[in-house]
């Protein structure tokens, strides 16, 4: 996806996703024989050509404007709008609903929200497929959604004017009603939906000006709060269908291993167990309830042999990453290396594998009949969910329906559709609706992990310690190769994102990338490559500032253009954090990272207590351009900070005998309320195009923390998690 992010502002028509048709013999037969897994599905991405302009915002609106695709009537005759993004906590459903309601003239507080089904109408305009990720919801939909809403508004006004036989000039749409200004009459939007279907969509409908917004820019309440405070919100886990069975699975703990032995009779002796079903990379027990399925799985006691990661352990992985630094790799950027320099500094930075650990374990529900394949899933990726469902059920795309539920956390994990494939497979096998639920242990040991990475720097400086040239080499695995079934040697932008493309005027930067394919499934993890490259790059800058005996703010200002957005963030952050007020017992650190179209800076105040790191405060300034809902932006900064703190202090997935050793929250711990610092966030006032905010809060945290702790201990921390 990161490759796509590079082109995040290209027109939607430039990105095509094509599915290569299933080969013969039939997929069903192959499936029964256990011959293919998710890896058998081929997705081809045709990326926009590199020379395409990097326009300021996505400007290509969807081509069709069926009213019912966006506005629907509920069973009670109320008005509902379809919001084309998955809601996993990031608040995008609220932000996009605000944009739609504001431009349309609907009453945001009264209008109902509907989740999207699979429909290319709802394709993410940046990616050209129906996916929520890459912090794109607002920046992708900001322009197209206003065009859709303005088009609908004009169609609804025309429909009312036609009914009243008056000119559209004297009609307006406000607060959920079309009003006739000549006489005091009005008609509710819900009463115009069917009439508006027959109206020809206008070309170039006028968009509202900023001073006409009622909701955009205001801290409107979230649309999902009620349902999430009374237990009524439906997550994937909560889907109930008549006659439904519940399954749970074990997959080969060594990645790519084969099922060896299992005791089917013992499993079936458990009360309520209906069936034992082999799945491509493991085995499932299907029962009347989850507890029975879980007990059945314990009795089944499956064993596995072989696997692509057999014998792999953390020490071997770290040695391979380290020795990757000796390889020349693929050059991303080649700068001149200074020969006339005063100092040369070497450093190697390291980041580990990480798990997503969403609070809701992976799950999905499917009902496959002769007529259709219906799936209910907490998914970030409706397009690939539909593809995998069609592929396995041998249905036409039109027979596949993907219902999106609320997601109990996503962070990138739910861009993958392995759990959807299992639900479809099991429903076909059982001839009944099946909900597959992973245990926490299964979830943690079968993730698409944030890949480990190592970065080697060599920097030549002048006598004042300012860099003259800068060489960097990143060794890691490719998340895009995993996502697109790319080759073992494929290199992608995510591997080194953020190293050579920040606003620092470092002209003589060299960057090369080495792919080390460990055969461990890797994937998008909140902020993707920036999650480690932010630590590497900003860590090194803090180190250089220290060597130069310069204040880290001053050191950065010297590298930045005065008018740059990074400088703007740093200026505001310096004031907000009271940077110059020092207190000997408190260590302070700063970092600033550009990612996902936004600029985020953080200052950390930390102390040592009983030889443990205690974080008192995190100050954060974000410049994410035009803001739709400032409160949601602030909450996402705070959320990203806590997510990143968890990783920086505790996060490391270990491997032994080819498998993940962590299994639950006792050995893969999360930050607790007690450990959570005070977090102070400010948003830069900006009229730039909207940037992302779900992920940009993550990257600056680790390097700022490393610097703060370093100030207390006198050490330099180049490895995550930080251990004193």
């Amino acid at each position, binding site marked *: 996806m990161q490759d796509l992010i590079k082109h995040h502002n290209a027109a939607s028509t430039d990105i095509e996703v094509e599915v290569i048709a299933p080969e013969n013999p039939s997929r069903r037969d192959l499936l029964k024989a256990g011959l293919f897994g998710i890896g058998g599905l081929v997705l081809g991405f045709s990326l926009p050509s590199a020379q395409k302009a990097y326009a300021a915002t996505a400007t290509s609106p969807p081509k069709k404007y069926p009213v019912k695709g966006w506005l629907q009537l509920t069973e009670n005759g109320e008005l509902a709008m379809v919001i084309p993004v998955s*809601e996993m*906590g*990031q*608040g995008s459903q609220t932000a996009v609903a605000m944009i739609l309601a504001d431009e349309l003239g609907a009453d945001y507080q009264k209008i109902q929200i509907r989740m999207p089904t699979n429909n290319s109408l709802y394709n993410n305009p940046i990616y050209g497929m129906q996916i929520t990720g890459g912090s794109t919801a607002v920046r992708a939909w900001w322009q197209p959604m206003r065009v859709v809403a303005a088009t609908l508004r004009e169609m609804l006004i025309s429909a009312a004017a036609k009914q009243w036989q008056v000119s559209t000039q004297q009609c307006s749409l406000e607060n959920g009603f079309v009003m006739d200004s000549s006489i005091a009459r009005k008609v509710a939007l819900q009463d115009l939906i069917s009439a508006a279907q027959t109206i020809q969509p206008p070309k170039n409908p006028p968009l509202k000006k900023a001073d006409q917004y009622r909701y955009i820019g205001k801290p409107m*309440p*979230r649309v*999902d*709060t*009620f*349902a*999430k*405070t*009374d*237990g*009524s*919100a*439906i*997550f994937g*886990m*909560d889907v*109930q269908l008549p006659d439904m069975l*519940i399954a749970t699975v074990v997959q080969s703990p060594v990645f790519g291993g084969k099922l060896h032995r299992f005791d089917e009779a013992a499993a079936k002796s458990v*009360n309520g167990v209906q069936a034992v079903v082999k799945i491509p990379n493991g085995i499932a027990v299907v029962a*009347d*309830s*989850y*507890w*029975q399925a879980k*007990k059945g799985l314990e009795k089944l006691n499956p064993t596995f042999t072989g696997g692509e990661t057999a014998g792999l352990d953390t020490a071997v992985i770290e040695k391979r990453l380290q020795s990757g630094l000796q390889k020349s790799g693929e050059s991303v950027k080649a700068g001149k290396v200074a020969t006339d320099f005063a100092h040369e500094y070497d450093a190697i930075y390291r980041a580990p594998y990480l798990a997503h*650990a*969403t*609070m*809701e*374990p992976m799950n999905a529900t499917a009902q496959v009949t002769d007529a259709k394949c219906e799936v209910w899933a907490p998914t970030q990726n409706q397009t690939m969910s539909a593809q995998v469902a069609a592929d396995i059920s041998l249905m036409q795309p039109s027979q596949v329906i993907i219902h999106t539920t*609320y*997601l*109990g*956390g*996503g962070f990138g994990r739910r861009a993958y559709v392995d759990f959807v494939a299992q639900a479809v497979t099991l429903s076909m096998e059982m001839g009944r609706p099946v909900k597959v*639920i992973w*245990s*926490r242990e299964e979830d943690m040991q079968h993730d698409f992990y944030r890949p480990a990475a190592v970065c080697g720097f060599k920097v030549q400086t002048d006598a004042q310690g300012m860099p003259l040239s800068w060489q960097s080499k990143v060794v890691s695995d490719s998340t895009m190769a995993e996502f697109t079934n790319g080759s073992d040697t494929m290199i992608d932008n995510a591997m080194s994102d953020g190293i050579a493309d920040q606003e620092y005027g470092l002209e003589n930067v060299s960057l090369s990338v080495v792919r080390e394919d460990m055969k461990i499934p890797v994937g998008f993890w909140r902020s993707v490559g920036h999650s480690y490259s932010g630590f590497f790059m900003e860590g090194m800058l803090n180190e250089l500032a220290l060597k130069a005996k310069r204040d880290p703010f001053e050191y950065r200002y010297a590298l930045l253009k005065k008018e740059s957005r990074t400088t703007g963030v740093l200026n505001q952050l310096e004031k907000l954090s009271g940077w110059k007020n020092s207190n000997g017992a408190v260590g302070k650190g700063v970092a600033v990272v550009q990612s996902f179209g936004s600029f985020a800076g953080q200052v950390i105040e930390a102390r040592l207590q009983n030889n443990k790191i205690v974080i008192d405060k995190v100050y954060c300034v974000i410049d994410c351009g035009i803001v739709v809902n400032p409160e949601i932006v602030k*909450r996402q900064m*705070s*959320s*990203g*900070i*806590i*997510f990143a703190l968890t990783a920086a202090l505790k996060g490391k997935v270990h491997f032994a005998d080819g498998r993940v050793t962590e299994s*639950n*929250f*006792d050995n893969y711990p*999360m*930050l*607790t*309320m*007690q450990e*959570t610092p*005070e*977090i102070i966030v400010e948003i830069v006032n900006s009229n730039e195009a909207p940037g992302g905010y779900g992920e940009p809060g993550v990257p600056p945290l680790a390097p700022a923390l490393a610097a703060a702790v370093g100030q207390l201990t006198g050490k330099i921390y180049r490895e995550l998690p930080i251990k004193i």
Partner: protein
Amino acid sequence: MKYSILVNGQSHAVEVDADTPLLWVLRDQLQMNGTKFSCGAGLCGACTVLIDGKPVRSCSYPIENLHNQQVMTIEGLERNHSVAQAWREMDVPQCGYCQSGQILSAVALLEKTPNPTDEQIQAGMGNLCRCGTYPEIKRAIALATDLTGKGA
């Protein structure tokens, strides 16, 4: 085994194995889905319910241990309860998956400690939240204290 359990003031007859955790009786038998499954080991608190007013991790609480006690789930919390009100006022949830457990833990905390200190809040709220809504949870608990008029 047949059991009769009291959930949110209503009696329910269920037939399950004696070791079935209360969580799965609520979810799979009674179709009360507000109580969430997350770690299955009593580590995270997403499955928190109140048994006679005390917070219990229902994923690790076998139904055979229940003896005529009152179980309260999120579905049984009054809509205008000060904690529910405060949670809505503060717009606390993000993904929302842990919030049923968070809310019921807060209800139990304020029942026992109507005006808790920061330390008491931290000690009483051991539930994990992956979205990191802890700062808002703290503020919502303070607001709930004010709403009940028991606050300082």
